[in-house]
């Protein structure tokens, strides 16, 4: 009987271990590509790993989907991600502007399941926000955004949205790269905003 309590105690301790994120087995600096609603994102920005996860910041990462009431277009922003560049922690946000879509409600995301959005750099594009001393938003990134899975479960108020992405941004003669991106978020009504 005593051993049963010991085992239960050990199991409880194991369950309480803080798991910051589910790491990719290839490069544990980045999260594994998943569709579980882990609220993480990762990519290589200019060759350095970028991670948006609870472990990297003291506040929650955000995945916001914003529309303007009087115009077509949706801005998706994955914020509060960080990179370590030469021992220096630097904040980076990654986003997308989808000029042909207006995503105002979470159920509209279900229609985007298993779609590829071509970021042509004109109507649809990738964004990179470099938050150093003065935030600098780089726009018109060219590449791809894959919405891999949108999962709705009965009884859950949130949807799980996961996907992959990558794009290049040319700015001031420099080519910034956002490669091998992946995200996996639980989306609630509070993830939506109505102006940007």
């Amino acid at each position, binding site marked *: 009987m005593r051993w049963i309590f010991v085992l239960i105690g050990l199991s409880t301790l194991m369950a309480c271990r*803080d798991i910051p994120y589910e790491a990719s087995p290839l490069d544990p600096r980045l999260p594994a590509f*998943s569709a579980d609603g882990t609220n993480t994102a990762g990519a290589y920005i200019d060759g350095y790993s970028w991670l948006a996860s609870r472990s990297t910041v003291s506040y929650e990462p955000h995945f916001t989907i914003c529309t303007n009431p009087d115009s077509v277009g949706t801005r998706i922003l994955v914020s509060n991600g960080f990179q370590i560049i030469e021992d220096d922690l630097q904040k980076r946000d990654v986003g997308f502007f989808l000029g042909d879509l207006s995503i105002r409600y979470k159920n509209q995301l279900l229609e985007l399941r298993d779609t590829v959005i071509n970021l042509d750099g004109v109507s649809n594009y990738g964004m990179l926000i470099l938050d150093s001393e003065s935030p600098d938003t780089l726009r018109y990134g060219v590449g791809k955004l894959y919405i891999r899975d949108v999962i709705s479960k009965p009884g859950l108020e949130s949807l799980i949205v996961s996907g992959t992405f990558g794009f290049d941004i040319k700015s001031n003669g420099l080519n910034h790269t956002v490669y091998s*991106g992946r995200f996996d978020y639980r989306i609630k009504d509070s993830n939506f905003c109505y102006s940007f």
Partner: protein
Amino acid sequence: MSKCFKYCGIVFLMVFESVFFSNVLFGQMYFQGNLQYSIYNHHKPLDLVDVNPDLTFGLGVMIFANQKSKFEIGAELNSFHRNFYQKYDEADYKYIFRGLDLRLLTNYSISEKWNLTTGVVAATYFPEIRMNGEYIVEGEGFRESDYGVFIGCHYYLTKSWVLGARFDFWFVNMLEYQLIGDYGDLQPKVKDIRANTAEVFLRYQFFNRWK
């Protein structure tokens, strides 16, 4: 738990019980400590470095028809351990695999003190990744079982102490992953990391003759 491991476990128990309950067979039990070094076959982008030796411990049982028999069959249960590192940004990412392995083996006596051994091995384990010692994740993409064959030999230092060496050929790729391309395209699934293990062991035999 893999089917292979379960079947080996059943055979291990059968061997154990057959010695306990048989009026004919002779048996012998042993404890042993194993010092192992695994060699990992892998490909880019994986870069496994600093593979350290693993120390594992086992319990075994052997059956023989009589004390002059040249053949023995046996079963062995060992703790299982593998580890390697990947290094990124000056941080050490340690991959650790802990579990159990089961061996069904046969020994052949080539002289009074020398024995050859061969058999099959199945392992079940739990992977985890640590960054600078801090737990990260239970190894997304890693398999949790492996199986293979082994060959070896051992030498009787005394009637109870045995020194031996074995080489394990493992068959299963430990990792299955899907690379995300630069622009988010998913590449076909890849299987990688196969281990071969060299080990030396020191065995203490007891219950030299049960019947």
